[in-house]
């Protein structure tokens, strides 16, 4: 497939990254020991997946197809297709409930049109995220509903060379809501508690935090792109304690997607929500008003801030923690201003 002279609409999203990622997502052409075709994505030039590629290079016998034990095929243990695998329950989730299978096969593809066509997201510096090992993504939170986290997750899960999942830690409220609660878990989220974040970092995951919390998503239109207070600096203690780098993330575009022009506090109290938003379209247009406006988005990942040079008890030093948290906040604020200029008009 020659892609030389073709002007690709999605050129900036599907970045070519070496021979390990073929442009078309071909399926592996080997057969598993159960006789079913292997349905993993092909990674080698010969059209085999990761598991079968090495065996194709060293054929052990005169067998026409590569056979392996089904257990070696970690994401598709029984060699089924997606639908059968789901119907039989034969998929693995991790302790926090991250359902890789569902994310990769259903949730990310569903997000793709929103990311590519609707918000036309451009990402910068995604390769500054380490390929392996723990790191803390710290982003600005905005846009009334936390759709910014969804976009950041999509960006890292598709554009990063290792396609890493971002493990966000979400507020209590998220886990009380029907549908949202388990969808959040299935995409890899955990609870915003020290226990959860620590354990995820210990397991070498990429943890996403939005220290502004509800103050960030629930701020009015006049405050757009002004970072709110960074919680109580818990993320900073976490990073110092675990000595994981902080990667600042600036997200531009979410503010215009759901511009909140007013907050009806009594209604929020009644519904036990942190705020009740009035946007130009909600509740004016009813459920239709819950659609985001098609703003243009930019996501920039900053250079990792290493945490190695601080003393062992740095996490206990409250002044140092606040100071560092403020510096991270300033960094993200500067990145926001820069990207606002870079983006130009919000919608067209």
């Amino acid at each position: 497939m020659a892609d030389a002279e073709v002007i690709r609409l999605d050129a900036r999203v599907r970045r070519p990254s070496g021979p390990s990622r073929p442009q078309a997502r071909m399926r592996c052409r080997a057969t598993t020991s159960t006789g079913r075709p292997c349905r993993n994505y092909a990674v080698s030039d010969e059209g085999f997946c990761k598991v079968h590629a090495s065996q194709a290079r060293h054929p052990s016998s005169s067998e026409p197809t590569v056979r392996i034990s089904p257990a070696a095929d970690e994401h598709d243990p029984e060699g089924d297709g997606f639908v059968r695998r789901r119907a039989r329950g034969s998929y693995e989730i991790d302790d926090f409930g991250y359902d890789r299978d569902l994310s990769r096969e259903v949730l990310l593809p569903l997000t793709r049109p929103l990311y590519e066509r609707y918000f036309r997201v451009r990402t910068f510096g995604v390769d500054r995220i380490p390929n392996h090992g723990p790191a803390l993504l710290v982003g600005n939170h905005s846009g009334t509903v936390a759709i910014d986290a969804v976009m950041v997750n999509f960006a890292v899960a598709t554009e990063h060379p290792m396609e890493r999942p971002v493990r966000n830690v979400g507020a209590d409220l998220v886990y009380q809501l029907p549908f949202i609660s388990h969808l959040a878990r299935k995409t890899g989220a955990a609870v915003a508690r020290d226990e959860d974040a620590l354990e995820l970092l210990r397991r070498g995951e990429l943890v996403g935090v939005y220290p502004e919390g509800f103050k960030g998503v629930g701020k009015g239109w006049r405050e757009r792109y002004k970072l709110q207070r960074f919680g109580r600096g818990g993320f900073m203690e976490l990073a110092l304690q675990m000595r994981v780098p902080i990667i600042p993330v600036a997200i531009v575009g979410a503010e215009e997607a759901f511009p909140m022009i007013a907050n009806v506090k009594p209604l929020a109290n009644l519904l036990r929500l942190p705020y009740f938003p009035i946007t130009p379209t909600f509740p004016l247009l009813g459920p239709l008003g819950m659609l985001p406006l098609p703003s243009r988005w930019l996501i920039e990942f900053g250079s990792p801030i290493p945490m190695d040079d601080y003393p062992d008890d740095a996490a206990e030093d409250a002044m140092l923690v606040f100071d560092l948290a403020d510096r991270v906040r300033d960094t993200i604020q500067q990145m926001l201003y820069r990207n606002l200029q870079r983006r130009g008009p919000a919608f067209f």
Partner: protein
Amino acid sequence: MAGRRVLITGVSRFLGLRLAKRLEADPGVEHIVGVDLEEPPIPIQGLEFVRVDIRNPLVARVLEATKVDTLIHTNVASTPGVMGGRSQMKEINVIGTMQLLAAAQRAERIDRVVVKSSAAIYGTHPAEPSLIPEDYASRPVSLHGYAKDCAEAEQYTRNFGRRRPDVDLVILRTQNVVGPTVKTSMTRFLNLPVAPTALGFDPRLQFLHEEDAVEALALALNGPRGIYNIADEGVVYLSQALRLLGKVELPLFVPVATTAANLLRRFKIVDFPTDQLKLLLFGRVLDITRAREQLGFAPRYTTRETLLDMRDHPAEDYTPEPNARPTWEQELFEYLRRRNQEKELTR
């Protein structure tokens, strides 16, 4: 050193019975005494069965007469149906534990007490840690039913530990026990052909295979004192569990689901206590690091394998039916008199 002389409470219920069978083959165990209200449904070699109600102070005489040095209390039960109603269950769970420990406090030979508590004492809340550590239980929560029983039983156990610091105290907080032969409200629920669930909620669940539960109790005979979370590795979503078992999920709007649970209970299909219904909304997963590292607990099954084992090896129900109350006091007196006679003879 001679082997341990073990007394198991609740020996006729599935966990105590299986533990007795397991310890029968253990070279470190010299003698097993089983205590319950009903005879064990299957005979066990080398088990000395004593029919006694642990709520009665007479249990102290049993501890003395049998010369046990280890007490394993497995009789904190979760299903009101088997126990003859909720108030009866509370009596046995709370007052039983209280009396038993009071008796143990007097028994000087006792140097180790193992109490089977439950993960239920952590309560059920959407924003609890994704993997609950042991020290999480210290925060104030309002508990009901079985969870409250467990919390109170643990409280008595800790008080006992304070009064007898020489005794090694082990508390096991077990996850829902599931397996081919276990019959609890959870296994009955999982075995419904069409399982009602709450619309919009898909909790992470974690189970404990019955064999792993027995193994953990056996490990507690020699492990270091402390409180341990006991569960199998890995989690499944409720939806996934039902699919693995080949059942149909019937998502119901939450108020409707509560009514459905009440109907199931009324028609004696599944006796799912209301206090445990929240588990099907928010789930509960334990962190078993401490048990693995300090107790040497290495579960044979994962949560998922536990479900598959239950699916593939359905077994006969051998939980005893709650039959008429026996004249256990009389039998106990018989027993004690017999022991005394033996003592006379050997003297």
